[in-house]
């Protein structure tokens, strides 16, 4: 997928990325939240043109889905893959990864489970991928004392190639039940169509989200998690970066959440396994 960017066409903004109007609408929302109404309107106008002529990004996605239907795989196979190597002869196994070994696992009686691992943020910039460049950008903002959402640069976000994988969460309320998504990444499958984390029907999932968001809100420190979960008939595997943004008084009021799907994400699991 080419790196999303914006390019000048006349006096309007046009999308030259793989994603069409969803991409421009996301940019419009970010500009609106950042307080730049005029720029938001220009992005929205460009998106509406795309809407009038049909969103070709959606058509492309549908065509791709029609060609390659996701093959359901037995749940047991997924589960086996996710387990660490067997402890042969009860020998100690040295974990070679620079990350926390503390894994938080929760499950419910409906068969849903969430395995969540905290990862060291220091490993991110070295990877140089979308999450790494986003974290680097946020670190630069923080170092300059400009970690306010109105200072966000949509061009920089677009360069990171992460627009469709971004959530913006309003955390102005001190009650996590009132947290709500101001933007939900159009390219993120998990948890879509819910305006707030608490609205998700799987309560362990909703509780986990609210807890993680609230931790970042209270500590004002970014967090990186690797998450494997099974919700209903779908298993997910992704890395999540949560970045706090402050208001003028230095309170965390918004979170920028970026998702990177890992191998084995969004796989349908056969019922009964």
């Amino acid at each position, binding site marked *: 997928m080419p790196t999303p960017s914006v390019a000048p066409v006349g006096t309007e903004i046009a999308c030259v990325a793989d994603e069409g109007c969803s991409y421009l609408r996301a940019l419009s929302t970010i500009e609106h939240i950042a307080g730049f109404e005029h*720029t938001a309107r220009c992005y929205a106008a460009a998106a509406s*043109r795309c809407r009038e002529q049909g969103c070709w990004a959606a058509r492309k996605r549908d065509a791709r889905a029609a060609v390659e239907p996701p093959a359901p795989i037995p749940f047991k196979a997924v589960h086996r893959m996710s387990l660490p190597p067997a402890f042969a002869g009860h020998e100690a196994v040295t974990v070679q990864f620079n990350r926390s070994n503390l894994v938080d696992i929760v499950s419910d009686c409906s068969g849903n489970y969430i395995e969540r691992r905290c990862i060291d943020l220091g490993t991110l910039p070295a990877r140089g991928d979308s999450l790494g460049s986003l974290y680097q950008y946020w670190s630069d903002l923080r170092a300059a004392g400009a970690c306010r959402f109105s200072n966000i640069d949509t061009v920089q976000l677009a360069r990171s190639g992460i627009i469709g994988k971004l959530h913006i969460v309003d955390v102005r309320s001190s009650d996590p039940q009132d947290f709500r998504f101001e933007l939900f990444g159009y390219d993120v499958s998990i948890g879509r169509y819910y305006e707030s984390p608490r609205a998700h029907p799987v309560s362990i999932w909703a509780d986990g989200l609210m807890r993680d968001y609230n931790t970042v809100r209270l500590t004002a420190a970014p967090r990186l998690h690797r998450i494997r979960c099974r919700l209903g008939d779908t298993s997910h595997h992704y890395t999540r970066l949560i970045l706090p943004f402050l208001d003028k008084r230095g309170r965390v009021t918004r979170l920028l959440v970026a998702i990177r799907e890992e191998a084995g994400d969004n796989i349908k699991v056969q019922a009964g396994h």
Partner: protein
Amino acid sequence: MTLAKLTPASASENGGLMFKRRTVIVDGPDPIDQHVGGQLRLRRAQAGMTQTELGAKVGLSFQAVQKYETGENRISASRLYQLARILDVPLAYFFEGLDETGHTEDGTGAAELTRKEASMVLGAYYGIKDPRLRSACLLIMTRMAGRSEAESE
């Protein structure tokens, strides 16, 4: 212009003076500075430049560009000229959308309708696949507007 930067105050507060100087800390950014900053941001996005890249071209940090865009810092005339040249726009571009009293159009009235109309016209225009038909439409529109083709280009 000086009066535009001053806000009325009671005589008792200002030792008999009728106006006090407007400050960013107390009164927030000036709406005109915000508008100019917004135009700068829009044009920068259209050009696909990050704040860091634009800042490097004019010898500023990205924080300075941020402050220009939010209207927290005023852009000097020389800097505005420099930015206009880098972004390839006339100086008047930064003041487009300001009415005679210096207020930004709020987008709720006639201006918004005009924008929607313009968007629909553009959408319909680019919806015509045949380039010959498109140029014929353009010709009709320019003739109806009473402009010459050369002028419209």
